[in-house]
């Protein structure tokens, strides 16, 4: 999974960035039971703003999430309480949360907090 040097483009000429999306703590069950996904998203959102984590979350909800129970992942358009978001293994709080601008080759990990013992 080497970092791509240049963002590729899709058919209509819209620039794409590649990233690794990972799920842990049971969230993978909402995403086809797959812990790791290699996806591409547009460089810019529909209002021509550079893609940030907030946009990524909406994108995942609409495109990658097959499960109907959206509220196990998002509540009121934001990541639900109890889910940690890690950007390249660092807490997204350290990176600016939703505002962080996605870089080509980033790994974004979503962890559902466990409570069993």
């Amino acid at each position: 999974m080497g970092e791509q040097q240049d963002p590729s483009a899709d058919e209509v000429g819209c620039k794409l960035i590649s990233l690794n999306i990972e799920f842990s703590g049971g969230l993978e069950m909402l995403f086809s039971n797959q812990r790791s996904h290699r996806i591409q998203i547009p460089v810019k959102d529909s209002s021509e703003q550079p893609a940030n984590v907030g946009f990524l979350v909406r994108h995942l909800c609409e495109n990658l999430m097959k499960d109907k129970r959206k509220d196990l992942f998002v509540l009121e358009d934001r990541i639900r309480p109890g889910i940690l978001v890690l950007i390249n293994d660092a807490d997204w709080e350290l990176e600016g949360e939703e505002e962080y601008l996605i870089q080509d080759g980033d790994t974004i990990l979503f962890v559902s907090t466990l409570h069993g013992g």
Partner: protein
Amino acid sequence: ANKSEVKLSLEEYKRYGRQMILPEIGIEGQMSLKRSRVLIVGVGGLGCPAAAYLAGAGVGTLGVIDHDTVENSNLHRQIIHSTSRVGAPKVVSAITYLRDLNPHPNYVPHVEPLTTENALQIMAEYDLVLDCTDHPAIRYLINDVAVVMNIPIVSASALRTDGQLIVLNNPPGVGPCYRCVWPRPPPAESVVGCGEGGILGPVVGLMGIMQAIEAIKIITKNPARDIGRTTMTLFAAYGASPFRCLKMRGKKAGCVACGSPERVGEKITREGIEDGRMDYVAFCGGRAGMREL
């Protein structure tokens, strides 16, 4: 911490010799272990191995709190209980095992649930708490009391084939607390327990052992050694790369438990916990007024 005089007997020197020759422990570390008072909240899948290895290592006072009794469906993962003790209180079963492993520690049984009524009084007797529980409500309670009492928390959890570990409020007042990381509780419908989701025995065992390791590191630490940023360890038994070490946020200035919230009335205090103003069950989406966690 308590710097009272402790002595090691010849039997103890022999018993702990293999760990006392480690530069990380030494005689000093062994004395620190003997002086330390550790509370294990929940003696289930996490608490069993954590208690076994901390007792083995020679922690001086080991408190165990749990209101549950041993069932045969526990035994695939709760390895300090036994078939012959099915039906006994878990705390009694655990101490039976622990005392035979190592007679030296002072074992303190608490056969009751940890509640807003007794938590402050019980936790006042300890220097370190291991959160080995299985529900968010009690995790918030342990956190708030530990912050009030200025003691670190070694927190772990497990479900299915995954586990998570984080050390909180360490050093007290410096590292982030549970509320710094999780200010809002998860929606009740998103919380899955081991009964419902299932659990692989050695997965929760691994997390409990990791709690024992972190506890020993905290107790025997060279005070001069600086403590880096808080990390969270993830384990996934079936993951391509089973272990991950995540760099976590620091303490939040406005945290209602360990910080100074903008609205002063939101600050969680000893009095607020004691007089029942804090309804942890309701906070986590359960029925208000239910005291049992």
